[in-house]
């Protein structure tokens, strides 16, 4: 149906979006690449010089980088594990006949719409405060010693906050997928005497494989650059305990004003994210019809 006229029109309509996204993608990235080869500090911006790959050598061998990389991986891995291991049973539960299901759904989804700075500060103060927090009160009720979350297990505290924000996302996607599952197939299996467990393992799990992959990839892309939650709770500390790669780059850029080094770090982050993005784009592309 696409006549030559609509072809031309189509191209004209598409151009502004493509041009804008192209500039948005290329210009800052090219600048980052350029800056990453410079010795350039905003505190002493007259004295800059070309240093080749020196910044990368410095950034990658900096002990802070290895700590930040480890923290990033622990954060991403733990949040993924928590959201999927809790999200799957929760989605299965919400797929059952539940009285007042729509209200429960609303309660489960709500955290996703809370802005990151609010969830981080509310958790840190109202829930995790070692003396007056709700968790401390629960601990004393059961006779345990309250945990000083942000001193004793700071990274875990951040993980809990971020997992709470992303659990709704995983649950909602898995629930959507469950609702598209073939009911008749399940009924047939039941009639043939399949137990609930085996019908879960052989029918439901394979059906969920794809949505779980999608959840993992999308969450990973966002979780690699968790920033606000760390910024308002720990500032990366104590020491480097909660510094992830995104926060390390932020510190080098806007706290130490080391443009060269921060740019090298930024490119490392881009490379890591691209590895994940590659797989996600492939999955999305596979079932895209144009």
């Amino acid at each position: 149906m696409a006549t030559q006229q609509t072809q031309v029109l189509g191209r004209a309509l598409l151009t502004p979006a493509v041009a804008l996204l192209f500039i948005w993608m290329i210009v800052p990235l090219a600048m980052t690449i350029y800056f990453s080869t410079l010795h350039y500090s905003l505190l002493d911006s007259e004295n800059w010089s070309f240093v080749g790959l020196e910044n990368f050598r410095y950034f990658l061998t900096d002990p802070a980088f290895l700590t930040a990389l480890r923290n990033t991986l622990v954060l991403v891995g733990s949040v993924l594990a928590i959201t999927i291991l809790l999200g799957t049973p929760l989605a299965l539960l919400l797929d059952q006949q539940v009285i007042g299901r729509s209200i429960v759904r609303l309660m489960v989804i709500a955290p996703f719409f809370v802005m990151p700075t609010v969830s981080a500060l509310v958790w840190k103060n109202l829930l995790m405060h070692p003396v007056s927090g709700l968790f401390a009160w629960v601990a004393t009720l059961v006779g345990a010693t309250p945990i000083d979350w942000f001193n004793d297990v700071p990274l875990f505290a951040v993980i809990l906050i971020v997992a709470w924000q992303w659990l709704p996302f995983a649950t909602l996607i898995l629930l959507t997928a469950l609702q598209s599952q073939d009911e008749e197939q399940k009924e047939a299996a039941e009639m043939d005497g399949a137990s609930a467990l085996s019908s879960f393992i052989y029918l439901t799990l394979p059906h969920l494989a794809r949505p779980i992959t999608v959840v993992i990839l999308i969450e990973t892309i966002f979780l690699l650059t968790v920033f606000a939650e760390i910024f308002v709770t720990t500032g990366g500390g104590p020491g480097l305990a909660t510094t992830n790669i995104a926060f390390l780059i932020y510190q080098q850029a806007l706290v130490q004003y080391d443009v060269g080094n921060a740019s090298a770090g930024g490119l490392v982050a881009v490379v890591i994210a691209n590895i994940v993005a590659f797989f996600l784009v492939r999955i999305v592309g596979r079932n895209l019809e144009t």
Partner: protein
Amino acid sequence: MARKVTARRVWVSTAAAWLFGFLIFLPILWMVLTSFKTELEAFSMPPKFLLFHWTMENYATVQERSDYLHHALNSILIAGGSTLIAMIIAIPAAWSMAFAPTKRTKDVLLWMLSTKMMPSVGVLVPIYLIFRDFGLLDTRAGLVMILCLGNLPIVIWMLFTYFKEIPKDILEAARMDGATIGRELVYVLTPMAVPGLASTLLLNFILAWNEAFWTLNLSTLDAAPLTTFIASYSSPEGLFWAKLSAASTLAIAPIIILGWFTQRQLVRGLTFGAVK
């Protein structure tokens, strides 16, 4: 859902679901309750659940001391502005890819998706320097621009998947009857696309409202939206829990309500059609 389920099973699922739902919602509920307490009661141990002296005082204090409305207005203008501009750029693009696809349309779509994968922190330095040199730091215009570009791929994708669902036959019929492309857009396409347009608008407004990387790094006071405003409570003076709760409640209430309307679109918008 047509399967027969025993009454006992329904009660067990119901109890479990409500318990989980309540636990997940508890932090928000607790925050709302705390916002109506006095600072002393907010801090008291054991905590007071409902039997406390209910007060609206914190809400008044938050407005008086830190001009809450100024930041709320910034949030509305930044989230609304960036979403509207993104829609204006995205509607023609999505229309073109859905109704006049070429061999390269799929590649273009996937390329657009990949721009969304770029971590913001990777371009923090150049964006910060560009903003500094053009006097855009702490301006609403600067934030509108950045958030618009950041969300543009999602907007285009969502619109594309909605437009794709509009049956082409109808358009062809309209064209046979002699409708021009302009008339076709206004009288045939637009009415059918309104639900998709509305949910795209809504979801992206929410995403922009909650965006907390660029807003934290590029705004301090004048242009600071609610994300940055709330972050200022991370360096507290004295007792501040009730005030923090009041400010937070105000900041998230409108968005949670909007969000509940977009549950279905959320899945679609954020998985780029990979899960339906």
